[in-house]
């Protein structure tokens, strides 16, 4: 499935009436209720809210790591609800870059191999093309000198920069970041945020979940969630 349309006036993401329920034997918990959201190309959206408000669940659904129980999710104008596992995998690989709080680098792979990994899932890239894309991405995050190192040899901040490089190496339509500074000290957190801002300045679309108000305020728009619902949305720029 190809959903890559370069229509700048068309939203990258549109959510309508999105609901996610976690069902247990005893009780149904509504993690998301009737969410409506639009993210335009080049926009930087921050999602905030207290723990358990559903912001990470929302990001997982946006990143096609999870599915909603009801509602409509349109990515680049195409409804992605009801797609097969394989179709979702193709979209995740080509359209979405994900940055996790826990970095999620693969310990057995070198930095270069970690960043290259999503590119190897595309069948249309030669080895030299992949290598160029990896180098560019690592240069962008200032980690090109650590190509042959392994994740365990890097600090937390460096690991997150590599994770950012991996997310953007495939030139995705949108970058999704789930508490990207959550596991970092303030100094390293600032470095990562500067990096995300730089990407945004270069035209990338970003959606970030964060607890940190100061980082959220660097976004174009802040969406505040509570108990699975969007309670407030504010345009900052």
């Amino acid at each position, binding site marked *: 499935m190809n959903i890559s349309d370069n229509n700048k006036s068309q939203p990258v993401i549109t959510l309508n009436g999105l609901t996610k329920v976690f069902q247990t034997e005893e009780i149904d918990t509504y993690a998301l209720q009737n969410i409506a959201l639009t993210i335009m190309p080049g926009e930087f959206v921050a999602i905030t809210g207290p723990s358990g408000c559903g912001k*990470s*669940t929302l990001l*997982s659904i946006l*990143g096609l*790591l*999870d599915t909603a129980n009801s509602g409509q999710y349109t990515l680049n104008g195409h409804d992605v609800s009801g797609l097969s*596992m*394989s179709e979702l*995998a*193709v*979209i*995740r*690989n*080509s359209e*979405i870059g*994900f940055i*996790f*709080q*826990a*970095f*999620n*680098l*693969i310990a*057995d*792979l070198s930095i270069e*191999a970690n960043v290259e*990994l*999503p590119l*190897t*899932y595309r*069948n249309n*890239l*030669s*080895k030299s093309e992949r290598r160029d894309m990896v180098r560019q991405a690592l240069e962008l995050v200032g980690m090109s000198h650590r190509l042959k190192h392994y994740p365990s040899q890097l600090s937390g901040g460096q690991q997150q920069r590599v994770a950012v490089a*991996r997310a953007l190496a495939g030139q995705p339509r949108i970058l999704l970041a*789930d508490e990207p500074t959550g596991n970092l000290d303030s100094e390293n957190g600032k470095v990562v945020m500067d990096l995300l801002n730089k990407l945004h300045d270069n035209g990338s679309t970003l959606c970030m979940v964060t607890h940190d108000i100061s980082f959220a305020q660097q976004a174009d728009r802040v969406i505040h969630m509570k108990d699975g619902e969007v309670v407030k949305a504010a345009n900052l720029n």
Partner: protein
Amino acid sequence: MFSDVLISEVLQSWKSLLKKPGYLGLASITLAMGVAACIVVFTLVKASLFAPIAVPQIDRVVKLGSLEQGDYAGGLAPIQVINLGKLPSVRQVGAATPAVSSVTVQNADRAIMVASWHVSKEFLDVLRMPMQIGRGFNENENKPNGPQAALISHGYWQQHFAGNSSALNKSLLVNGVSIPIVGVLPLEFPYKNADIIFPLTFDSSNTSWSGSFNVIARVDNNVSYEMISSALYSRLHSLDVEHKRESLGKYHHYIAQPLESVLRAETRTSTIMTIFAGCAAVLLLIVLINLSNLSLLRIVAHNHDSAVRRALGAPIFRLLLPTVAEQFLVAVFGCILGLSLAWVSLKLANNVLPSYWFISASSRPEISLLSVLFAFVLSLFVVAIALAFGWWRIRFTSMKDVLVSGGRTGNDRKSGKLGSLLVTIQAALATVLLLVAALSARTYWNSSQVDYGFDGEHSLAFHIKPDRGTYPDQEAVMIMADGMVTRLESVAGVMRVGYGTNIPASGTDHNDTAPFLMDNGSVLDSITAYLVSPGYFESLGMEIQQGREFDRGHSTNTDTIIITEELEKHIQTSMLGQKLTLPYNSVNSAWENLPLSIRGIAKGVRAYGPNRQKPPIVWIPFMANTEKLYNLWRDSDSLWFIVKVHGDPASFKDEVLDAANDIAPTLSVGRLEPISEYQALNLYTQRLNLVLILVFSGVALSLSSIGMYSVMAVSVAGRKHEFGVRAALGAKPSRLMIDVFKSGGISLGIGLIVGLIVAATVSKFIERFLYGVSAADPYSIVIIVAVLILSGLIACLAPAMRAARTRPMQSLRMD
């Protein structure tokens, strides 16, 4: 372009696997054990039970005989063979002596004892097997008093003539007579016990009812075995009636049985092969469960990697590729290791297992193409298991949770439950095998502790075969034997010497039975009878319970016998002083019956081995007036000497051999061994079976322990955070250890109970192989419970210690 990515990913998987080779080692060894066990057992089963018999059109060859006891036809007496005549639909009938017997062959430098057999020309004709070289017997050689001729076995030809065809121009000096070799039997000849075969001839005037000759026949193509049986019964029953055999209880059922089934039954391996096949099947099941467990744990360990790859958009094929690559390496290593192990085991088996286990010399167990194919398929199955589990994990695991936690979630509930279930099943299967092993061990122990009814601890025995040339009659044999006794008793340290036609536990029970008539006219049929000299009882340490032993001088023993208490119990009346009559005229009507007075009653002996009942026995003095009986037996039986000594009997071997050579220089001495060695040999098969079953159960136990260790290790790793919380809340290290042991103990306990229930349901099958112990033997059950608990403790120990060492802060920092 795409292939380099795949190759790189495969290489990366192998690199990771080899970096920490524990999993590769465990999984490969587990697979290798399964491959080797199955190949070895099924190769043995094939070679022993299903190897083709090289007799052309064997389905047309039958064994003719009487059905006295058991499921298979026995033999026929000479008078019956001669009177068979022309049976309808039977093309040809051939006969052979009941069993092999020893002959002395004088080689250039020494005399050797060789197993010989007498078969008729027609016997070989019925088999229709071409000789390796030379020919079978001709018409002249097949006649009474015809020219001498001998066939030698393929093995004897190889050993003594280096497989040279010049053997045909040579003669064998057998019992002092030169006999030309006319042919060499083919390698595939199904009767393997004899190395030299002589012609068997029946004088048409032979009306002897003594002997149980092997009779085979080739029948027409379209005739059923039932029809032949019916014709045989009709013919031989008429003969029984004509000779009034009912007075000796000799009305038998006569049948024709397919030779193939008779030959296969004679290998006596179907029972033990069934046990082995059962053990191998259980072991294979354990191996597959263990491999599934290991595979599942490996996939769980890769959970984080897999989730990251999925998040980055890897297609399912690429998600499974690392797992498939790893399992492929396991499969290759396991397959090669398993085949190597099987090859070595089969080589060992070829040297250790008795030749009678295998139906023909060329059917020795070897690795076959089918074995390699089996190993390949089993190895592929390992990859398939991993694929199935991998797909299951991808389909049903939430990658979101794994990614949020950064891969620290460990084992999930579903995988943990499945792992525990697999451990439980393994424990149950191991319980069944361990119970079989424990019961086999108890059976072996009971057998080894059996009282044979005599004390041979300080005795040694040997046998010789007096030839008719040098020792034409019983008197000549007695003079030589008495001379041997005198010579041996002159050796310092020798206390007493006796001789007889057999000794208990010799392992030979050819034809040592005779009918006896009681005073009241009733018949005691097929009573084991030995001709023995004075000193026989004393040298064997046998106890006379009533009456007295034979006197030292032969003359006062005339017309007296000693019987066992079993015979007295059988008759249910006091026998001392009564008479039994040897009905010679039932064997040959021209002979006189011989009345014998019972002078003593001896304690019973286990003449046929430790696990068989004590037979009723009659000991008859080795006297001139028992020559007719001796003549019936001397061709098939040897003369056995028992030498009781002071001290270690093995240390007297050289002196005994010197004495034997002094007295009978032309005769070869056979099996010069302490009596204890004879008794040990009776347990050889049982010991061998026990060893093999112990190997199976040992492997099963090891594999179960490996499975349990793997599950517990992964479980502890997955519960690190939980243990951290518990430790932070004040749980002592010992308490954390107990938690791990408890968790393992539940799986083990359930498996143990299930295993015992399964064992109880198959106990009827097991009980057939036991001696002196029941399938529900409490000692065996206690032993296996103890062994399983111990192995469970060992398997859980390392994971439990790891749990006990959990540092709260380190674990909680993960939050």
